[in-house]
């Protein structure tokens, strides 16, 4: 599903975030991305979502070459990828359900169908009783779950999560990881950047360790 071949990413100013990374992630895999901060975890996720482009090397996602992907094609690639952010990136000018409906509005789905699907996914992350609340009134863990709901409402084949449990206490973190395990079980490919060892231990799965822009495979 995802293949990196000697991918290097150098930022303007000369900082090299990734150096000659080669790896393959198969469909339906659960992969953890570990490493200290600044090791290049976020860069790797950004490359997959075409938020950044590789400086050299070949990167393909779902058979599409990211290096050569046109500006117009990027949105359609992203519609197949669910993104979970550490800082949630929620919109505080609308309520919970409107936040979740946003990707479906963008895809041009009929409103009634959108709301139905949004309610289903909000129910799955356990926020159904808060659907009319403003996200600002939610706790950190609830906001993160809302972010996950928004990433999943489009039923993406691939979910990228950047430090999904970064700011959460152990209880919330365990909840969220359990949710990820459920998604993995229904066949979603998951790539989670984290340095939460407990979570990794709880879920199991493949671990990629990044160190100064180089990637190495680790056993769980």
């Amino acid at each position, binding site marked *: 599903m995802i293949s990196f071949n000697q991918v290097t990413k150098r930022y*303007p*100013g000369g900082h090299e975030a990734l150096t000659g990374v080669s790896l393959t992630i198969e469909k339906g895999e659960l992969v953890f991305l570990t490493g200290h901060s600044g090791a290049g975890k*976020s860069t790797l996720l*950004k490359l997959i*979502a075409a*938020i*950044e482009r590789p400086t050299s090397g070949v990167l393909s996602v779902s058979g599409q070459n990211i290096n050569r992907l046109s500006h*117009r094609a990027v*949105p*359609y*690639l*992203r*519609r197949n990828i669910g*993104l979970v952010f550490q800082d949630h*990136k*929620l*919109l505080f*000018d609308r309520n919970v359900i409107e936040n979740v409906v*946003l*990707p479906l*509005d*963008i*895809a*041009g789905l*009929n*409103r009634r169908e959108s709301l139905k699907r949004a309610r289903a996914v909000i129910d799955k992350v356990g926020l159904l009783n808060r659907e009319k609340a403003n996200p600002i009134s939610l706790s950190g863990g609830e906001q993160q779950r809302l972010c996950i709901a*928004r*990433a999943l409402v*489009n039923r993406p084949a691939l979910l990228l999560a950047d430090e999904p449990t970064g700011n959460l206490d152990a209880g919330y973190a365990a909840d969220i990881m359990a949710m990820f395990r459920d998604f993995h079980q229904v066949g979603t490919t998951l790539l989670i950047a984290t340095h939460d060892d407990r979570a990794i231990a709880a879920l199991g799965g493949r671990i990629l360790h990044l160190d100064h822009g180089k990637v190495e495979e680790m056993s769980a």
Partner: protein
Amino acid sequence: MIGWLRHQMHALTSSLRRLSAQPVATLLTALAMGVAISLPSGLYLMLGNLDRLAGELPAQPEISVFLDTAASMTQKRAIAARLKQADIADARFTPKEEALAALSMEQDLAGITAGLTENPLPDAWIVRPRATSQEDLAKLSDELAKLQGVAETHLDSQWAERLQVALAIGHTSVWLLAGLFAIALVAISGNAIRAQVLSRRDEILVSRLIGATDRHIRRPFLYLGALQGLLAASPLAACWRWQAGCCTRPSRIWPVCTGRLSSSCRQLHSKSQPYWALPPCLAGSVPGYRWRARSVRSRHPADFREKGTLPWLSTHRLRVLK
């Protein structure tokens, strides 16, 4: 097709919601835009009416046809015959003796004329043509000057010429003003849309990250500009209607003038009713396109970067700075 319509409806309703959420700001912008549209168009209408009025006033221009002192009797008869034709309303012959007598009546010139041994003045015809337009008058004057036995002609219509020149200057300045106000219009609506873009920055960023196309992001701003233009244009429509209604009332002072004004108002109103709201709408939309393009393109690569990085600097610009 249904998806496309759904997107349009969504953009329209979201723009409407945005506008109604800030009624004061919306009204102020519409007011500024309305003034910018109505000032030059009102002036243009006024000038147009003045123009027509000037053209149709009984201006009574006169052409003085001075005969050659050596003109023969036959030539004089031919000239008299020409001046009886249909394009001449009235022609009056002034023999040179009469002209000299009239001149002598003038107080200042009495002494001078008394000292003359012979009459230096030529015979003349004072001709009042039927034509009123500047062009036709000049043509007739030239034609008469070319007749055998005519020394020269003099077209007495200076005031009309001056009025025409003044109107021409007026027209030029109206166009200039319209150009300036058009720029102002774009600037006003651009500013309003820019404010909207800034306040919706997060939404644009998030939408891009979850797969919104440029068109999807641009659409509400285009609608916003168009709606604002429409809003600015609607009071103007009311104004025209009111003005047209006002002018139909009879006025004792200048019935001709008011009659003309009202008819042309009504004409302008009915002729272009559905179309003239278009320019403000378009003017409103143009900045929507511009601002959207700038804000979205330059911000997108930086959205994951650490806080503190200026988000509107593109990678290229960052490179230049370093």
